[in-house]
């Protein structure tokens, strides 16, 4: 095996043949824990291939889905990023773009679609509703899909402009550029979500879903407090 990894202080470019491995380290080779010139080059190649040929899974539910369609159409072309092949089957997709509000009725569907996607996979939460619940802080809406699936990039907006979505996609590409796909850890990583329930603990889900912002306790629209000296007939308790 000529491609053993070099020790850290030999730096890039040094290939030590038959060099001593640190005790307890996994066997040398391309997938060893120690980065080297060859593995970083391989990483770069793999990352380049992945980022420029992402097959998005458009999980479009509402208005953001229309903006996603517009992003894929002629003016804000997604094909220049290699993403024109929208995969409607999760089995063949690697980027889930959740565009639109997700209700609790839809949540298990989203979860299942995410679980059906093979690794490596990334998720973009497009729009305010997918990121945090948006304007819909109500009984039926998931307050951010990150309580259901792990999200990589959040694109704010209601709906985000196509340029905004493209910026989010570029951030995903940046994230892919910085990943180490051939490292042992990555190779062995298993991204399993718990069998039932959210992948986040209860307290975190409640904290993420709680109403937030400066204005929450200061205006009547939050439905949390009735403000003002005059309590009108129409100020309903939340």
């Amino acid at each position: 095996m000529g491609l053993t990894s070099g020790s850290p202080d030999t730096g890039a470019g040094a290939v030590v043949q038959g060099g001593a491995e640190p005790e307890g380290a996994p066997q040398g080779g391309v997938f060893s824990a120690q980065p080297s010139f060859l593995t970083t080059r391989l990483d770069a190649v793999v990352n380049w291939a992945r980022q420029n040929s992402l097959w998005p899974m458009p999980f479009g539910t509402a208005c953001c889905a229309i903006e996603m369609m517009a992003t894929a159409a002629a003016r804000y072309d997604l094909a220049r990023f290699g993403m024109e092949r929208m995969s409607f089957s999760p089995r063949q997709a690697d980027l889930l773009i959740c565009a639109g509000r997700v209700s609790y009725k839809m949540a298990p569907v989203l979860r299942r679609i995410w679980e059906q996607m093979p690794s490596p996979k990334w998720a973009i939460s497009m729009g305010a509703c997918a990121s945090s619940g948006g304007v819909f802080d109500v009984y039926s809406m998931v307050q951010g899909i990150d309580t259901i699936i792990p999200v990589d990039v959040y694109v704010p907006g209601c709906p985000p402009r196509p340029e905004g979505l493209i910026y989010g996609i570029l951030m995903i590409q940046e994230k892919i550029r910085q990943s180490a796909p051939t490292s042992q850890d990555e190779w062995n990583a298993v991204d399993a979500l718990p069998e039932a329930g959210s992948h986040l603990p209860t307290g975190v889900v409640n904290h993420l879903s709680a109403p937030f912002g400066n204005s929450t306790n200061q205006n009547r629209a939050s439905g949390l407090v009735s403000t003002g000296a005059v309590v009108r007939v129409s100020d309903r308790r939340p």
Partner: protein
Amino acid sequence: MLKRVVYNVLRNPELAPGGSLVHAPVVPVQGEAYEVHEDIAGEHMLINIGPQHPATHGVLRLVLELDGETVVRCIPHIGYLHSSFEKLGEYRDWNQIVPLTDRMDYLAPLIYNCAYAMAVEKLMGIEVTERCKVVRVICMEMDRIFSHLLWLGTTAIDLGAFTVFLYTFQQREKVYDLHERFTGARITTSSTRIGGMMADLPPGWIGQLQEFLDNFVPVLDEVETLLTNNAIWIGRTQGVGEISAADAVNFGLSGPNLRASGVDYDIRKDRPYYDYETYDFDVPVGEHGDIYDRYLCRMEEMRQSVSLLRQAIERLPGGPINVDDPRVILPTKTAAMNDMESMIHHFKVVMEGVRAPVGESWFSVESSKGELGMYVVSDGGAKPVRWRVRGPSFINIAALPHMIEGALLSDVIAVNASLDIVLGEIDR
């Protein structure tokens, strides 16, 4: 024992003198439906389409019982996008509800904005200015074209015609530009307010609209040459998804779905608002109630909307866009910045909200999808007691099983597309 009705496709097609296809009727086989032994028929399949599916136009779930390719039963499931707009509206002021209306029918947001404002203005007894009326008519007709273009693109792509999708989306980008110039947003326009609009039309907007109309009609003609006399299109849409006039009325269908069955009901003609009775336009009414007739109705509606827009542009009067009523309208920015009393007035209108009298109003407009009704109930406060949206798609989709039971699986997608549904207004 299972009864089966067998259809013969393209029986006795009608040809033009040049040999091109004019009409291809799809007729059931002559004679009675015959019974089939179970062991020959085989088992029925229960399959699930959606809620995540490219061709359901949103998060709609259809459970189909199939006998081979024939749909024996269809059960639609909705509610995957239920965002409780109506409950949320009870916690929002009358003007704060306007942004919510964009997000229901996101394909024609200005129609929803206008319909809501009109319902509340009816409740309050406010009559908007002449200029505002014409501007709202322009907004509604422009969004009718906008919505029909999306319908056309997505229906065509569902049936395999990809080019039409690209053409229509290119035209829609121009309407997005118009939306953005007027309201600041491409889709979620939120442009009306109680008593007027958020702002007047910017200079040059009308010119841009006219340019759009001039360039749009040739594109529409081009799309017609691609579809209207196309044998594949005719074969897939004629005779498919038929619903009779009596059934359509009983199911509560509205809009082009109802008119394609031969029922002449258009709110712009039957309960006209904003001087629609003074505009010169026709309402296309079909005959067979199949997908092809719905397609023809919507194509013609787009042309009629172009004509309406040209008339509206011509008659657009000057004058204020907002009603001169300090109880509902904010003072101008200049006044509010320079004048303490106006600033306090501004503060009171924004912080305490506009108040409506005790009462209620059920008002409907002809939206691109059908009869869009808004029911607002007030108890004298700044927020509604009840805000109900009669979304036309909710009632239209309920008729889907009636239309496709007995049809083939590929017709399910075609009929679903032809109903022009938007899940935002179905699930609300």
